[in-house]
């Protein structure tokens, strides 16, 4: 199918969903802001992850974020600036993981070590965090729930989403270029390490801030699939980022609506819709 057909279908769906202000009033604008922010952030970062084929980091960073959130909650309590400390922890570990890969350590090795460490330490961190912030808040980190987001959290998510999307669009062309041949990019004079570390930072920022909205489990899906789908259907770096954000927005909005009408967890529906869209796009290539 032609690229324009895919984009037209996605744009039509997104517009239809956007023209439901009465429903959003019922849902609450903090939730709408949170879903918009997470879609912008995950959609744009996912496109860059697909371009650089850094899929292993899409597994590593959510694990690290799930470790950082309860540690921060234990130290600073919940609902304040604990997300800033969590962001710092996630960013540092994302940089270390990315640097190891940049220096030639295999992605499987990096993922095995960091994920194993983070998963084990998370069990201990959650054990103590439950005493401080309660089991409900900890459960939100794992399952995610945009309907529980407060005004300040929604606003932060929207601002972070806009920032991540703007930066992603700014570096998309160079990131895709590096994805073709890192060696050629190095000799061409591009500062590859600057672009790579910017991408690691954007991933850390998106996942650490959006963890409570999407949950740890679906954060991985949102980092992997919108971009993987967009690189199949779009043409050119900017179009890929736009398509990826649109895919993430459509899936997240349908997930939100499903949670209201069908009483199912929104993140789960969002993830399943993304898997379905990805599978359909794969099948359509052979038709």
């Amino acid at each position, binding site marked *: 199918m032609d690229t324009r057909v895919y984009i037209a279908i996605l744009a039509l769906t997104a517009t239809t969903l956007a023209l439901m202000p009465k429903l959003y009033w019922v849902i609450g604008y903090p939730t709408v802001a949170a879903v918009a922010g997470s879609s912008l952030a995950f959609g744009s970062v996912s496109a860059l992850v*697909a*371009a650089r084929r850094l899929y292993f980091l899409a597994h590593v960073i959510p694990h690290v974020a799930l470790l950082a959130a309860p540690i921060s909650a234990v130290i600073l309590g919940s609902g304040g600036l604990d997300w800033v400390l969590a962001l710092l922890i996630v960013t540092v570990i994302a940089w270390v993981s990315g640097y190891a890969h940049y220096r030639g350590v295999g992605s499987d090795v990096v993922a095995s070590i960091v994920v194993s460490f983070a998963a084990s330490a998370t069990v201990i961190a959650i054990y103590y965090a439950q005493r401080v912030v309660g089991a409900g808040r900890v459960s939100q980190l794992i399952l995610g729930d945009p309907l529980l987001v407060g005004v300040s959290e929604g606003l932060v998510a929207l601002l972070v989403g806009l920032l991540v999307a703007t930066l992603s669009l*700014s570096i998309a*062309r*160079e990131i*895709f*270029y590096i*994805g*073709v*041949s890192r*060696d*050629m*990019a*190095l*000799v*061409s*004079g*591009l500062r590859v390490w600057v672009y790579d570390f910017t991408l690691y930072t954007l991933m850390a920022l998106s996942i650490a801030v959006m963890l409570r909205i999407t949950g740890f489990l679906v954060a991985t899906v949102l980092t992997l699939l919108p971009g*993987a789908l*967009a*690189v*199949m259907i*779009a*043409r*050119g*770096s900017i*179009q*890929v980022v736009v398509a990826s954000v649109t895919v993430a927005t459509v899936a997240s909005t349908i997930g939100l609506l499903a949670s209201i009408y069908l009483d199912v967890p929104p993140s789960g529906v969002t993830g399943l819709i993304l898997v379905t869209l990805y599978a359909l796009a794969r099948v359509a290539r052979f038709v």
Partner: protein
Amino acid sequence: MHMSHSTPTVRLEDVHVSFNGVRALESVSLELKGPGVIQVIGPNGAGKSTLLRVIAGLVRPVRGSVYVNGVDVTGRSDIAGTLVSYMPQSNEPPGESPLTVWEYVETSALARRSGWPRFRVGSVRGVVERCLTMVGLPRSSWHLRLSELSGGMFQRALIAGVLVAGAPIILLDEPLASVDPEGRVSLSRVLGQLAVDKLIIVTSHDPHPLLEYTKLVVALNRRVIAVGDPHEVLSRLSPSVLYPHWVSEHGH
């Protein structure tokens, strides 16, 4: 900006390269002067690609130094990149790359300019068009995704990305490997024309398509086996020395 230098020159002094304890290059000393085409030939595993990567500053030798136009570029791709363009061995496009041919070549041109590439897009339109035409990519393919190209067309797009930089020294790793016979002739002609004022160093398993434009052949098998006039080197070295696997499979 490229440093002005009347004769493009690459000099390697006693270069040794090892990967995980396995020697890839041993005591390689060479002085390659342009303009002209220089072919590096040798069997698989001879270190041809490594030699180009050393010159491009992508591999730091365990011993020895590399100078390009008199500038020490040993292990410094950022410095080497101001003087050389490099195309790695690549037989097929990266899977799912949505970058278009035009966007790829345009970014190759912009990457070398100071400032943020995207603010200077319009300034390279002419040179991008010229390079795409030069390598024989039809206009209808300019806005295809790289992943939609055949192996030969992808190779041409990569070569256009190298040419657009305008560097005085061009390093091409197996540039004709995936190109059809007709394309080899036309691309060889393009490289021959460029070699009028540039030094073009090409690795190759089959030196013949480029032979009429080649001024020097370097035969390599981790060490330098021979350097000299193409016909002289090729007639002096038996195929079993250069291509032992091929000869054992197909006979002389």
